């Protein structure tokens, strides 16, 4: 099989939905700026890009009308480059990467831009017209709110509130330290807005303490343990990676970050959707022929602290290697954009920190998990 690599990663700053600096930026404009940034930093020839694949969890309104095509035009990609929007909720942009890899495998192109976007300010979660099937609602918990599934995981795995808060504090502190050390500078594309240029994340809360979090009310269940402080915030953001064959990358001197070694998708019970990464990661690791012990870098999306802890536990992950620069509780989770962010991040970290293997995995509403195993390229 062709060796497929991540040959570049960029993202917008992430900001809190509704009150953050990107609330007034259209998601198509936001993503177009990120893609221009990615092209600029990688030096890829846009004319040779086969397709722009954009993951989005709620592709309607300003994210509708096959937004990928619209973003391509906004980003001034050559008219010959395709555009496809992918929806697998939170797994959307990771799926975009997997799709690109598959296309390369069948010989349907050499270079793909795989992006993701979500403006949770401008397109609400559930969309503008939520119309659940009443019959399905009766027989399945597939429509259950995400917060409730996080509570279910917490009680099934007996994860205490304090344990969740400890993870949140660590996530905030790692993110704050990484920002302080300028470690996000090379991944962030500054975004031009009506209110000026935005070049820093707005989600991170430095100095968050366990005491601060202990004072919060449960956010989803009066008797529950999950709070706003142990959940990823509603976020606006976009991300993109360049996926190419290794040959193409080398031929064009593209900055290879890592090779995609294996991928997987898996389903799980909707009411504990946060456990999705367990099976999908196990499958991907098996396909890569390695175990969790072989991993040097892990990017595990923290949709909620409870589900992240459950996954770390069951997969036997090393917290010292997991979410080194902070996770989604601190960084934010713009649904459609997270997948490309954590694959791009894991690839960059593999390069920055050294090591051989990395894993990026996340849970998906409705009960799924998705995983990508990366391998360092010599």
């Amino acid at each position, binding site marked *: 099989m062709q060796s497929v690599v991540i040959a570049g990663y960029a993202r917008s700053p992430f900001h809190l939905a509704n009150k953050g600096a990107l609330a007034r930026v259209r998601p198509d404009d936001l993503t177009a700026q990120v893609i221009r940034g990615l092209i600029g930093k990688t030096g890829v020839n846009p004319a040779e890009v086969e397709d722009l694949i954009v993951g989005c969890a709620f592709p309607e*309104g300003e994210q509708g009308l096959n937004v990928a095509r619209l973003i391509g035009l906004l980003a001034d990609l050559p008219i010959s480059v395709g555009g496809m929007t992918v929806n697998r909720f939170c797994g959307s942009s990771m799926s975009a990467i997997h799709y690109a890899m598959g296309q390369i495998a069948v010989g349907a192109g050499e270079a793909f831009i795989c992006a993701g976007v979500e403006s949770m300010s401008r397109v609400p979660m*559930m969309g*503008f*017209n*939520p*119309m*659940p*099937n*009443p019959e399905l*609602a009766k027989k399945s918990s597939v*429509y259950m*709110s995400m*917060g*409730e599934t996080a509570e279910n995981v917490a009680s099934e795995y007996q994860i205490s509130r304090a344990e969740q808060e400890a993870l949140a504090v660590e996530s905030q502190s790692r993110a704050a330290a990484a920002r302080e050390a300028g470690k996000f500078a090379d991944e962030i594309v500054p975004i031009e807005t009506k209110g000026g240029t935005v070049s820093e994340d707005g989600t991170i809360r430095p100095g968050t303490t366990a005491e601060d979090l202990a004072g919060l009310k*449960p*956010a*989803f*269940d*009066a*008797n*529950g343990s999950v709070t706003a402080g142990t959940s990823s915030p509603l976020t606006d953001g976009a991300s993109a990676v360049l996926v190419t064959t290794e040959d193409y990358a080398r031929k064009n001197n593209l900055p290879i970050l890592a090779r995609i070694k294996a991928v997987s998708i898996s389903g799980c019970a909707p009411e504990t959707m946060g456990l999705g990464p367990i099976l999908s990661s196990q499958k991907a690791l098996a396909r890569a022929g390695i175990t969790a012990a072989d991993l040097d870098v892990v990017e595990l999306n923290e949709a909620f602290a409870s589900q992240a802890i459950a996954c770390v536990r069951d997969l036997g992950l090393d917290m010292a290697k997991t979410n080194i620069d902070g996770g989604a509780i601190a960084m934010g989770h713009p649904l459609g954009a997270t997948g490309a962010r954590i694959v791009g991040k894991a690839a960059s970290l593999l390069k920055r920190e050294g090591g051989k293997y990395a894993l990026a995995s996340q849970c998906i509403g409705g009960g799924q998990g998705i995983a990508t195993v990366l391998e360092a390229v010599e």
Partner: protein
Amino acid sequence: MSDSIKKVCVIGAGTMGAGIAAQVANAGVPVVLLDIVPKDGTNRNAIAEGAVAKMLKIEPAPFMSKSAAKLVETGNIEDHLDKVAECDWVIEAVIERLDIKQGLYAKLEAVKRDGTAVSSNTSTIPLANLVEGRSEAFKRDFLITHFFNPPRYMRLLEIVTGPDTDAGVAAKVEQFADVAMGKTVVHAKDTPGFIANRIGTYWIQLGINAAFDMGLSVELADAIAGKAMGVPKTGIFGLVDLVGIDLMPHLQASLTSTLPQDDPYHAIARTMPLIEKMIADGYTGRKGKGGFYRLNKQAGRRKEAIDLATGEYHAAIKPQGPRGPAAKGDLRALAESKGDIGSYAWAVMGGTLAYAAALVPSAAADVVAIDDAMKLGYNWSAGPFEMIDKLGAKYLAERLEAEGQPVPEMLKVAGERTFYRIENGKRQFLGLDGEYHDVVRAEGVLRLADIKLASKPLLKNASAALWDVGDGVVCLEFTGKMNALDGDVMKLIVQAIPMVAAQYKALVVYTDADSFSAGANLGLALFGLNIAAWGEIEKLVAGGQMAYKGLKYAPFPVVSAPAGLAVGGGCEILLHSDAIQAHAELYTGLVECGVGLIPGWGGNGEMLDRARKANRMPRGPMPAVAKVFETVSTATVSKSAAQAKEMLFLRPEDGITMNRDRLLHDAKQKALSLVEGYTPPEPPEFKLPGPSGRTAMGMAAEGFHKRGMATDYDMVVSDALAAVLSGGDADVVDTVTEQELLKLERETFMRLVHEPRSIARVEHMLETGKPLRN
């Protein structure tokens, strides 16, 4: 000089200054709020910015909407005083120190434009002193505008002009204060304390003195000098707690130093050792550790009162206050009551009324100004002269004389007459000249009470009346308790429609009362529920639907003019009007879910129609439905007319009147403006999401339930609401007519009415006035 006020500057961001700035912003006019630069800290605008931030948090809210807050520009007097040049009116509300005010005026004079009005919010300093040393030009632009706290809610504005004040400048300020800020202007003379505080302080001092001298409990004192006297039930001690006990020595010092030597106030001004000790110990009233009353948190928020003799707190007692006619507004009976009640009532009331009577013409030109000031500034239900009319001017004069007290000139002028009378349908007042004069309403002020004096209703029954308000417009008035709505109201509406269609041009729904309507008469409904008179209840629901739709499709324009509370059925009638002209203080909402019901008089369809036409509402079957569900299932009530607009009860083109007295006139004009070429609206047709939408709303409600914000029975009620709003079994490709929606609304309402937990909610509301969270 510019004709109107387009921008205002308020200097001094304390409670009063900030509150005044907020009210200017509420009027939709940009305002600059300046204060001094704080001694420490790096933010030079911190004081003004802090004041705005604080106002966004406190209740009752100074701002009517968040967008109003954006009209306030903050700054400091060192860096931003030049902004005064952009303003048409500068209101000074800084500390009550003559030297500081004079210093500020000197600086203002250097930056202000000629013709820009400058007014002081002083409550104590004479105008003549304020303008000492200023130029002639400055004096022409200067006046006193004395607002009351809180400026948004207190309607009184005392205006004092000096001998040099330009009439045009004063008129410009008065016009703005009246029409834009909604204040009722009372002209006061340049005398200490002006009108309201001068009489109010005297009254408070008399009340405190008499309670101490007679050894009365504060509870009894407030029962006598409270509701029985037509005064808010806080009485005197409760009021002092509210405004701050520590304010009293300041008021006293200011008045004793400025009032003429022969003023009776000097004789009653006293300091009480207990009160001095309370202030020293931090017992300054509600803002302090407690006052004459306190809520003892250690004892489970028990209400306690202080013993004026010992200074010890005890559980507040329910005193044996005035009874019979003396408790119900018969002031003569109150003054003649036996024992402490009569003695205290006379000591407070006799003294206060005599004092007030002596202030014409020194402090106010006529009795009307004094009455207005006390009614609007102290929320008395009757002004001093209206009280004297109840007591008898002759009685008051004779009793004063018998006690060797001087009898004020005004009482002598009255003799055996009253201060007010109705002559040829016009209200008149007695002047110092001994003649009666018409009470003149300003242009644009129309009160139903005045119309009622001069005419008979066109139609009337136990719960509603119809009045001819002139120019071809009739007014539908509710008359029940809290203006509750019942079958009689609906009957009168049905009768009125052909009459108006045949003989008049338009109809206005309006009442002078504080509350437009508290909605359907729940007492009556409960009676029906208890005897299982389901047929009668269904008839009431169907009758209401029919009457309201009758108004909506009548061949003439209907304008509703609500003020105060307009909830439930009182909100639904607004929704059926062609237009709404609302008083700025409008508290409206569909609150039926709170009593276990849903809107039953067509409110669901009208709200859906408003929501789907709302600006920037996303397309598709759900957004409008979800928006209405959110508002109605939570029984949310607006805290202002501006907010009612955000909540879609008012349409963008509906009008807001700031001054309560102008509401009927404005509504009438609005109605007349719709007459030419009027055609009734077309019935709406809806595309609704059906069971899928109901499921989605159920999921949203479940989230609230899990979080403990919705009770078990809330889930049942909200599901019933969701069923109606989603169109029942309608498929998204179907068209639901207004009639179909009404039928669904009626059937669902009737289903809820049978639920014991709904009945329990209705009962609880009637008994306690609060919703039952079952």
